[in-house]
């Protein structure tokens, strides 16, 4: 059984936000409006945020922040209806039709990467034609977040089966990893020692975001210490 994970090389990230854009297109993320963005209600499953000691300085590290797909997720434990859970391949998933919208998971998440549908999602009419048919549109009142483009895994696996082979390295990649112009995002099976991602995860620059909280994130970051 694979254990899907991601390594993001911050030394390569140029903060272009192509990942954010690709993710929005791929996952039918509602088109935000200015009013709601000002209220900090816009949804972006991956967003590039500047982190570092000094605010508003070029010294800051551009950090693509997405669901960390923790091996010990604080969010799944607190969900009263098991609408969020970790599947057996390590992906932290969300069942939209079951979620009651209590937002407890969003509060329990130390990374603040869970998003709530404050209103029913809206797109300009022209954009509605461009929805990705593989991803369901979320209704009002439920939590959503990064799924590691789980629908792509299902498609990749079916394709491999049809071709009579097993799933191989590179068959399944989330939209963000695919779109990164500097190849800062590596994705794959962390349990396969020969995969690119597990080699990158063992890089001397690797660290986990707030790894001291014991959440065991499967997203790792690479950054050289100067």
């Amino acid at each position, binding site marked *: 059984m694979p254990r899907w994970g991601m390594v993001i090389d911050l030394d390569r990230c140029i903060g272009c936000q192509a990942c954010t854009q690709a993710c929005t297109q791929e996952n039918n993320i509602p088109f935000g409006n200015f009013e709601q963005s000002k209220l900090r209600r816009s949804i972006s499953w991956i967003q590039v*945020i500047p982190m570092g000691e000094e605010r508003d300085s070029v010294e800051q590290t551009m950090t693509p922040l997405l669901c960390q797909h923790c091996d010990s997720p604080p969010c799944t434990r607190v969900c*009263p209806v098991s*609408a969020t859970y970790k599947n057996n391949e390590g992906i932290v998933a969300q069942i939209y039709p079951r979620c009651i919208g209590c*937002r407890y998971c969003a*509060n329990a998440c130390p990374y603040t990467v869970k998003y*709530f549908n*404050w*209103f029913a999602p809206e797109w300009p009419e022209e954009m509605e034609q461009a929805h990705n048919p593989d991803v369901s549109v979320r209704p009002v*009142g439920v939590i959503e977040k990064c799924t590691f483009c789980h629908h792509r895994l299902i498609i990749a696996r079916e394709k491999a089966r049809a071709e009579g082979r097993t799933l191989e390295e590179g068959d399944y990649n989330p939209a963000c990893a695919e779109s990164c112009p500097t190849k800062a995002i590596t994705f794959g099976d962390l349990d396969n020692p020969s995969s690119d991602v597990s080699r990158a995860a063992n890089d001397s620059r690797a660290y986990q975001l707030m790894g001291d909280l014991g959440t065991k994130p499967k997203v790792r970051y690479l950054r050289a210490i100067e």
Partner: protein
Amino acid sequence: MDTNAVTHEFDDSRLLEPLQTTSREFKVAVTVLLAVVGWAAFSWVWQVSHGLGVTGLNRSVFWGIYITNFVFFIGVSHAGTLISAILRMTNAEWRRPITRMAEVITVAVLFFGIANVFFDLGRPDRILSIALHPNFTSPLIWDICSVTLYLMGSTFYLFIPLIPDIFLLKDRIGGWRGRLYRFIVRILRWDDSERQRLKLERIITIAALIILPIAVSVHTVVSWVFAMTVQPMWHSSIFGPFFVVGAIFSGIGALLTAMILFRKFLGLEKYLLPIHFKQLSSLLVVMSVLWLYFTVNEYMTTFYGNEPREMSVFAAKFSGHFAYMFWGMIVTCFVIPFSLLFRKKNRTIPRIFIASISVNIGMWLERYTIVVPSLSHTRLPYPIGVYSPSWVELSLMAGCFAGFALLYMFFSKVFPIVSIWEMKEGLESSVSIITKRFMSYFGISVQETKDRS
């Protein structure tokens, strides 16, 4: 030995009056309160049809005054059952005119505590998911279990001591209430015999014994909803006992406010005497000191530990965005009640009224400064959440308070708000029981008092 007191006749006329007549003020109050509740109902429909976006909530402040109200109301519910159970179990004789009022608060306010969680749901239509797919590792499920148990227990605990009064009233009040009383009496086959009374009192004692740990567990579990997460200034082991102490504190505050209002508007001066207020307000002073002790414990350890994430929440409360609320809480929870009621001779009813209102406000502020600041200052530097409640949230909050007042007033029209049989029983037998107990401390057995009662 002079035990003349036993011959005093208990006059229950004023207690029956609210059931027999309805004043103009009462009708006006009901109309106003109904209007507020109606407005809240409209706000709720508005929220359901538009989504939770009509609140002031956002990312990262996912919880606001709905959850504040939930914690506050569950806290106030400790007025009743817990205080009444403690007073019964410690044989505090002055409890008699107070217990029923207290128990009604518990039952009535619990509905609004539960309602606020419901308001907070993004998908109230999926409420059944909780029964269909419960996840028992979630503190919210623990909460639902303990609050449901508490509601059932405290309803039972309210109902049992009502039975002898229902028996008393069944021939004195007509109409639908008379039919209701006679129905209850018939169902229970109640004949108010001495044997039944003895059994009743034993059941009350056992119920009090069972309800105490449930009440403590309820507010502990409510605190665990926060404490079980790793969020800064939520993840604290002091939360359980702190919430319980705060709950009893705000419960006494609410009870005193209710007692003073009922005394004034139902003319209960003959039953609720200054001595009752003095006794209960001295408990309020003790609780306010205990509350300060817990607060100092919580904030001192955070401050001394100096952990950056905790400190950002601490600073926001102490001197930042939430400073008004934080210091307002210190003033209303400690400075005002303590300075007003610290000296025994100062414990007059107007002062007690101000102190009790102040404690209610203060405990609401405390709940708010627990829920919101931690969510505004998450572990990551972004986003920093700013929250102010919208008109929908404020309307629903007003509706809850109005609804609670209505339920309470409705109860006072159906059942006597002071337990008549317990007052009678107290007058008839307490003196001999206390004399007997007192003499037994000196090894003297008193036999003759028995035939007097």
